[in-house]
């Protein structure tokens, strides 16, 4: 309940944050603090320096341009869930953000902090992987982007380098004829996803022309299911069930609430249901 001592630095710009990161070994960046502060209260994290980037307006906001949506890393889950831009162009991301934690958590927690923490029970990562989103990082040596599918590396591990700041996420807008859905099997205590299934299908002329399914919670990182068998079908329940049953995880995670085997099973069921919901929205 009582964090250990640390020095506090507040960055006035991304550049200042980057130089503070360079100057202070083992410093931690803090956006909304909703991943870091809980760890610090339990003294599982004891950074000597915390760099507060929470006021960098340049990293906040949601916009759409050229068939792509951009979400600044400091945008809160509440703002994402309520975004008109996303409602019009990428509602599944808003849907997933609305499932995170609770109202208070969504008011402080940010998309950048969330994905940089990379909890396997988080709602956002499977959606970003599904969408083929790119995560943008900045360091003193420049900027780079990494595909969401490569960004999540392992349990609580991402591609963010020690000298980098996550600036924004770009995701392709959903085109006409595309429906997407995020379904969550919620842990009754933590509120995290035991399993979270993100699915999208594109339908043209009554036939599926594209389909995707990514399941979170089953493995350390989001698991992509090969549902290409759906292309060309009319997305019958049977076809969807068969496709979702392709979910496979070599080393599924398990805890006292849900074993690995069970998570894989629920992943298939929720995958099926998410695909069906996506179909109904296409």
């Amino acid at each position, binding site marked *: 309940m009582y964090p250990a001592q640390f020095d506090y630095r507040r960055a006035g710009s991304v550049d200042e944050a980057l130089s503070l990161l360079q100057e202070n070994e083992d410093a931690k960046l803090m956006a909304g*603090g909703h991943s870091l502060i809980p760890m610090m209260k339990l003294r599982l994290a004891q950074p000597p320096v915390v760099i507060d980037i929470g006021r960098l307006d340049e990293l906040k906001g949601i916009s759409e341009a050229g068939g792509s949506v951009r979400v600044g890393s400091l945008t809160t889950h509440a703002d994402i869930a309520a975004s008109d831009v996303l409602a019009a162009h990428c509602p599944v991301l808003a849907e997933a953000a609305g499932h995170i934690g609770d109202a208070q958590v969504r008011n402080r927690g940010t998309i950048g902090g969330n994905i940089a923490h990379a909890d396997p029970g988080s709602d956002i990562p499977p959606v970003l992987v599904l969408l083929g989103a790119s995560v943008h990082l900045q360091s003193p040596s420049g900027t780079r982007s990494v595909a969401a599918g490569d960004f999540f590396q392992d349990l609580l591990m991402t591609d963010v380098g020690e000298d980098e700041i996550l600036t924004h996420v770009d995701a392709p807008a959903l085109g006409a004829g595309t429906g997407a859905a995020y379904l969550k099997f919620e842990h009754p205590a933590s509120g995290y996803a035991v399993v979270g299934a993100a699915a999208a299908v594109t339908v043209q002329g009554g036939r599926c022309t594209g389909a995707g399914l990514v399941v979170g919670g089953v493995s350390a990182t989001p698991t992509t299911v090969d549902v290409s068998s759906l292309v060309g079908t009319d997305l019958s329940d049977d076809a969807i069930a068969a496709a979702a049953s392709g979910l496979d995880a070599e080393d599924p995670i398990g805890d006292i609430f849900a074993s690995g085997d069970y998570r894989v099973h629920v992943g298939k069921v929720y995958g099926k249901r998410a695909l069906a919901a996506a179909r109904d929205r296409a």
Partner: protein
Amino acid sequence: MTVSIQLEVNGKPVQAAVEPRRLLVHFLREELGLTGANIGCETSLCGACTVLVDGNAVKSCTMLAAQADGASVTTIEGLAQNGELHPLQEGFWEKHGLQCGYCTPGMILSANYLLAQNPSPNDEEIREGLKGNICRCTGYHNIVEAVKYAAERMS
């Protein structure tokens, strides 16, 4: 080290030097004597510490006092205006929405935020909107009734 902060709490300006690690809830309770916000867990789940920061419901146990620099904070002590109970306070009293009262300040402030977003929520929206607040006494039945009472009064 300490951090200088200036903020507004329940409409009054506050200036302080705080240790960086000091949580907002401890600052409110111990430095300002505003003990309405309570602490029921250490995993940001119980919501007993909920306050409004710039109008948004926030768990003050998961925010550094330093982060509140420049913010406007409302605690349960600041909800009644001119000696008049807020309709939510009335609702909780009228509908027996509390027993031990420990979760109540946080519950009322979360409900306040909910009604600001959605002035006439149905039962399901109330239950979804208050999922970040745990009550161990009431079984929530009368909390839903209390919020509905307040929503009607406020409309």
